[in-house]
């Protein structure tokens, strides 16, 4: 029976860029443990102090459920909006040259750099019923500030750079000849976009979506100003956690945190699986 050489002597395997597999893996594990795993485990352990019955009682109150629904729902909507318009922004930035392109490109990063509270205050001022945009929307019966819609607006604002920045390099690497090949074969612009360009973008688009979504689920600073924070209506889960903390109910706060963690983790896992599936259809490159 033929045994692969690598199985007999793993040290022989073709050159690695960073030497010492054992050392680098060990460091990675330690680092992730310190930065991610231990703090998260602490959250879990803390909430276990409640006991299952109490835990369930805390997280199944209508107020908590409503806040979770809002947090995840608004984050999903915001990430979807960002996926669509982020793709458009990335496309325009990569494919066209226009005056001040670099400036526009730099502006995309602003939501990253801006303190979230500043963003929240600015958005609130704009969308409040007597604000610049709020005034224009009021005759149409649309109120943004202090409603779930405001939450979506804030989350869309902070999530945009993730989609744009993950798509840009992929768009830049796209081979224009492939599009030209599609055109010579008689494909319309729409067919080329749907069948030739989009399949190449899906993995990056999903990554951008996942990042924007994850960021939006955990967002606090910009939302609390514009949301109005009415329980059952426009109160997000992270705010509820802070409220619990302010009442020194650490166990209750961590219980909500654990639910958020598990939900986020499951969603991320799902998105990753979807991404692996789209990548496998590439058959490598």
């Amino acid at each position: 029976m033929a045994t692969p050489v690598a199985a007999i002597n793993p040290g022989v395997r073709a050159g690695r860029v960073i030497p010492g597999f054992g050392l680098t893996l060990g460091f990675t594990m330690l680092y992730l443990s310190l930065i991610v795993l231990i703090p998260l485990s602490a959250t879990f352990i803390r909430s276990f102090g409640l006991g299952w019955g109490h835990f369930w009682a805390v997280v199944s109150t209508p107020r908590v459920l409503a806040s979770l629904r809002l947090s995840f729902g608004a984050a999903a909507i915001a990430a979807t909006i960002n996926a669509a318009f982020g793709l458009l922004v990335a496309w325009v930035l990569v494919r066209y040259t226009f005056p001040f392109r670099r400036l526009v490109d730099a502006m995309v990063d602003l939501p990253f750099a801006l303190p979230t509270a500043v963003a929240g205050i600015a958005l609130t001022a704009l969308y409040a019923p007597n604000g610049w945009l709020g005034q224009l929307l009021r005759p149409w019966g649309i109120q943004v500030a202090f409603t779930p819609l405001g939450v979506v607006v804030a989350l869309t604002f902070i999530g945009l750079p993730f989609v744009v920045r993950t798509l840009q390099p992929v768009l830049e690497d796209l081979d224009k000849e492939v599009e030209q090949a599609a055109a010579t074969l008689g494909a319309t612009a729409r067919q080329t976009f749907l069948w030739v360009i989009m399949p190449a973008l899906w993995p990056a688009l999903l990554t951008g979506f996942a990042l924007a979504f994850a960021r939006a689920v955990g967002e606090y600073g910009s939302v609390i100003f514009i949301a109005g924070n009415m329980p059952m209506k426009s109160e997000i889960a992270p705010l509820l956690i802070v409220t619990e903390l302010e009442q020194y109910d650490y166990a209750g706060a961590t219980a909500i945190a654990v639910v958020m963690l598990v939900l986020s983790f499951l969603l991320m896992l799902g998105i990753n699986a979807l991404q692996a599936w789209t990548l496998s259809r590439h058959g490598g490159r």
Partner: protein
Amino acid sequence: MSIALRGIGKRFGEFAAVENIDLDVPSGALLALLGPSGCGKTTLLRIIAGLEIPDAGQVLFDGRDATFRPVRERKVGFVFQHYALFSHMTVFENVAFGLKVKPRAERPPGALISRKVESLLELVQLEWAGGRYPAQLSGGQRQRVALARALAVDPDVLLLDEPFGALDTQVRHELRRWLRRLHDELHFTSIFVTHDQQEAIEVADTIVVLNRGRIEQLGVPGEVYDLPTSAFVHRFLGQVNEVAVQMREGRAHLGPIDISADAAASTAGSIALIRPHEIDVGRGAGGWPATVLTVRVIGPVVRLELQAEGRKAHPPLEAEISRERHEAERFGVGEAVNLKFRRWQIYPAGIPAD
């Protein structure tokens, strides 16, 4: 389908890629656009395909103006140097693409598409690869997929942009012969771009030599090789030795050899271009004394580098003799020989040697 170009010009900024090109490609021709990089050959091909719009002139398909006809309506098959396959589709899906994007009314039913794709894969000898992804194939196989994909829509014209440029010699040779056979079987009009004169000579019926955006010469392969009309074409198609014509006592000479019988050689400063196989190397008296510098056996031919007397400042002359003659004569390195020129061509002075 016949193609005609009338006064085609295209600039990229300040750079004139092609200028005032007139060209007629009769239906069923296999034509090579040959030239060094930057000569405009690819631009010209892309203008025919509709991937570039010319600034001036007209493109005629079967006598009808197609200058501004969109790419997708031109019915041209285009094969790219780097294949441009759809990497997320299988080989089968790649080949089927052109059929699947047809408007509903023209689209053949699924079973017919399958049959057509299978027969095309058979034609390119890849019937086993339908389920593979392009990344799992070698370069030569990928280019065959690209060809099958282009042929799937029954193009009237097949355009190939350096189709074999990225492949290794062996595969290239095989694919050239295969393309020639395919063309003879299917009778479409083909135009291919190459910078490899041997490829052009081997495959094409007609060669168009381009230089700096203009047509230098057009002809059948033998004609372009044997009767170049300019020093550029002479230099570009194959190896050449360059010897300056010297005037002594009113007679033209190449070294000590009197060539004043050649009327073209009467002006001082003109140059003679001589191909390596046109140099006769011998031990007999007369001719141009020279020393053998290197002897290299290259398959059926033997290439000698020769230092001719009085040409120290110039690169050595290159001569090619047959293997058989070499076996009989056995020229050794350092040996003194005499050179004679069986054939040469004189070009006026002042042509830069690129």
